[in-house]
């Protein structure tokens, strides 16, 4: 029964993919969209079943499909593990997935390849489910690669534009770098414990005598590199902003709510590995904090609405990694969930705006939209408040937990994260004011077309906004359902043990004040003074550096691409020509010998016979002398 349910959960989107890819064109756009949505809703329903059961029983469900690989003492099964963590992940993957599918029916309706879009979305959901419910690292890896592939397909969905193709390639290649790290990490773990199953790994690690901590740390570090690729942390983050080339639903689903959290999922899954590698944990915390600040500063001056949201995503992911590095896994998971709600809502909201403006993404050409798009504006406002950490919205609780944990461990990290949060509040409201307030700055033609998006678009927005507003309830301070729910997964005591004293309240106050300060600056700058960001050529100084993203792309281009190009050119021009002239030279020499040897064959029979006799005489003489 469980097996069948799990297979239904997993295969429904896959069947949707197959159907849409082969017959989607013939059944029409709306039908294929509805079908694609239904499969995900079905998965969501099954997930709900599992969730209620696990929430009640607190018992993980193990499902063994078949033995996959068996070599002497190394064994990998193809199986699923449905426990608190994976079901939690499934809930928001399939739940938000369903909403975004619904949204896409309307959003992609003018696209000729809508059935293909839904096929890819379904395939993505299928792989994401695989990633989440696999019972061992190899099944996780299948899903990991699969979502990477779907991400590539969907970023480059409008493949007629070469820039979009480049963005897709960039995402794919950067992820490959991370995947290599993940693979090496998996190999090391496999060779150390000769198993890849999560439960067996945990048992092996906890039961191991004289554990080789160095090797384990290397494995943990490699796994972290994998997580860096998928979850867009320094130094592998530059693909995510470019990934905004894909259709907006893709940005919302893959590059905000689901796939980019895969790295966090993996680290949380293997918390018992990372707990034993404190050095790696420190690296993770530092990388997370730095990423959150760097991305936030870049987001301050971006003018493309989706780019701001993309950098905001990178920044929020950085905060999650900060929590992971400090060992506060459940806090990171909490932030993943709330972030999925409000970031999906923000992306879909921006999609709604772009939809209304017929593809315009530059905030300098927007403004005043709240007059026309009430629902979009309101949901956007709620989500912006949530991400800025204003109580009582969800983001306040999760972000506050992270800041608190950081404060306990390390004041510097806390300061960096707080600064990033302040900047977050500023750039989110900068976006909000530029987009929805003051006067419309676009063309007359656009102005006449302005309209609120249809119900299929606004419905997911409303649902997500509600979730973004109340999502914090799952883990209230001192009364956290989530921490209790996740407790069986972690060896360490949850961080919720601290009582609430003045320090906690003052930290909260600082965080809220920081958020309000950010909002206030944005308010005075963009609403009161009605400033609009300069056009590209007038940006100078620090803003220019920020606007150009610290020139990281250029640096990468210079260091890696240029140097490798130089190297390959050197090999092409020098080494290869040398080699090929050597080879060709051999051929030439052989040819020359043949040409000279040809002259011996004069065709004169007399000469032939003479030489023949000479040879024979020589042989005879030799034989005669040899006696």
């Amino acid at each position, binding site marked *: 029964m469980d097996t069948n349910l799990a297979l239904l959960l997993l295969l429904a989107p896959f069947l949707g993919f197959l159907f849409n890819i082969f017959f989607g064109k013939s059944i029409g756009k709306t039908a294929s969209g509805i079908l694609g949505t239904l499969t995900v809703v079905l998965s969501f329903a099954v997930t709900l079943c599992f969730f209620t059961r696990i929430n009640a029983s607190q018992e993980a469900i193990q499902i063994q499909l078949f033995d996959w690989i068996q070599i002497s003492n190394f064994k990998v099964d193809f199986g699923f593990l449905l426990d608190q963590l994976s079901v939690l992940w499934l809930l928001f993957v399939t739940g938000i997935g369903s909403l975004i599918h619904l949204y896409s029916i309307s959003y992609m309706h003018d696209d000729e390849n809508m059935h293909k879009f839904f096929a890819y979305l379904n395939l993505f959901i299928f792989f994401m489910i695989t990633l989440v419910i696999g019972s061992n690292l190899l099944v996780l890896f299948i899903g990991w690669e699969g979502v990477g592939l779907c991400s590539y397909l969907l970023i480059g969905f409008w493949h007629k534009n070469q820039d979009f193709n480049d963005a897709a390639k960039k995402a794919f290649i950067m992820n490959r770098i991370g995947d290599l790290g993940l693979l090496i990490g998996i190999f090391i773990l496999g060779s150390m414990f000769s198993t890849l199953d999560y439960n067996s790994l945990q048992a092996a690690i906890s039961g191991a005598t004289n554990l080789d901590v160095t090797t384990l740390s290397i494995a943990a570090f490699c796994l972290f590199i994998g997580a860096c690729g998928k979850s867009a942390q320094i130094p592998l983050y530059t693909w995510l902003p470019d990934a905004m080339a894909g259709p907006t639903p893709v940005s919302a689903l893959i590059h905000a709510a689901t796939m980019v959290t895969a790295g966090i999922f993996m680290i949380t899954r293997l918390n018992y590995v990372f707990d034993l590698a404190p050095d790696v944990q420190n690296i993770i915390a530092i990388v997370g904090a730095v990423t959150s600040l760097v991305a936030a500063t870049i987001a301050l001056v971006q003018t493309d609405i989706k780019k701001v949201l993309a950098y905001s995503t990178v920044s929020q992911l950085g905060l999650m990694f900060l929590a992971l590095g400090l060992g506060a896994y459940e806090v990171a998971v909490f932030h993943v969930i709330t972030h999925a709600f409000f970031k999906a809502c923000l992306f879909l909201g921006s999609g709604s705006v772009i939809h209304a403006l017929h593809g315009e993404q530059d905030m300098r050409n927007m403004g005043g939209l709240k007059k026309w798009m009430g629902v979009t504006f309101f949901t956007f406002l709620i989500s912006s408040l949530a991400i800025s950490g204003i109580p009582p919205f969800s983001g306040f609780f999760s972000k506050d937990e992270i800041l608190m944990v950081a404060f306990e461990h390390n004041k510097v990290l806390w300061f960096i994260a707080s600064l990033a949060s302040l900047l977050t509040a500023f750039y989110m409201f900068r976006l909000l004011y530029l987009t929805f307030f003051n006067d419309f700055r676009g063309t007359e033609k656009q102005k006449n077309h302005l309209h609120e998006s249809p119900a299929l678009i606004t419905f997911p927005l409303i649902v997500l906004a509600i979730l973004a507003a109340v999502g914090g309830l799952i883990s209230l301070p001192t009364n956290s359902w989530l921490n209790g729910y996740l407790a069986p997964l972690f060896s360490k005591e949850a961080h919720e043990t601290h009582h609430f004293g003045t320090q906690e309240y003052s930290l909260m106050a600082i965080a809220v004040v920081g958020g309000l300060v950010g909002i206030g600056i944005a308010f005075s700058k963009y609403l009161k003074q009605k400033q609009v960001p300069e056009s590209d050529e007038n940006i100078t100084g620090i803003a220019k550096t920020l606007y150009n993203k610290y020139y990281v792309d250029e640096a990468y281009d210079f260091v890696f691409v240029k140097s490798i190009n130089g190297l390959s050119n050197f090999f092409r021009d020098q080494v290869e020509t040398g080699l090929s002239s050597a080879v060709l030279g051999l051929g030439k020499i052989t040819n020359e010998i043949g040409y000279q040897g*040809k002259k011996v064959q004069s065709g004169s029979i007399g000469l032939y016979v003479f030489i023949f006799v000479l040879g024979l005489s020589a042989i005879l003489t030799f034989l005669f002398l040899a006696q």
Partner: protein
Amino acid sequence: MSNILNEIGIENYIFLSVILFSIGVCGVLYRRNAIIVFMSIEIMLNAVNLLFVAFSTYHQDPQGQIFVFFSMAVAAAEVAVGLAILVSIFKNMGTISIDKLKNLKG
């Protein structure tokens, strides 16, 4: 009979055969006419046949005689083929001087 043989001695037969063979070789090497070359080859073959016969007589072994018949038969067949080739070459080129026959040139 045997004393005559002893009187002559096998080495004289060998000398004769070597002389004949060398004449044949020189004929092949120095003459330009294909027919003459053929004849020289026949002389070489006959020199060897002579050796065969001499040895078989002196060693009381009939095998040599049989070999001679074989080599004669082969030589006859070879000459038949060779002459046929020469005739057709002459028809084509109007000469059988082996200096002119350079069709095997590389």
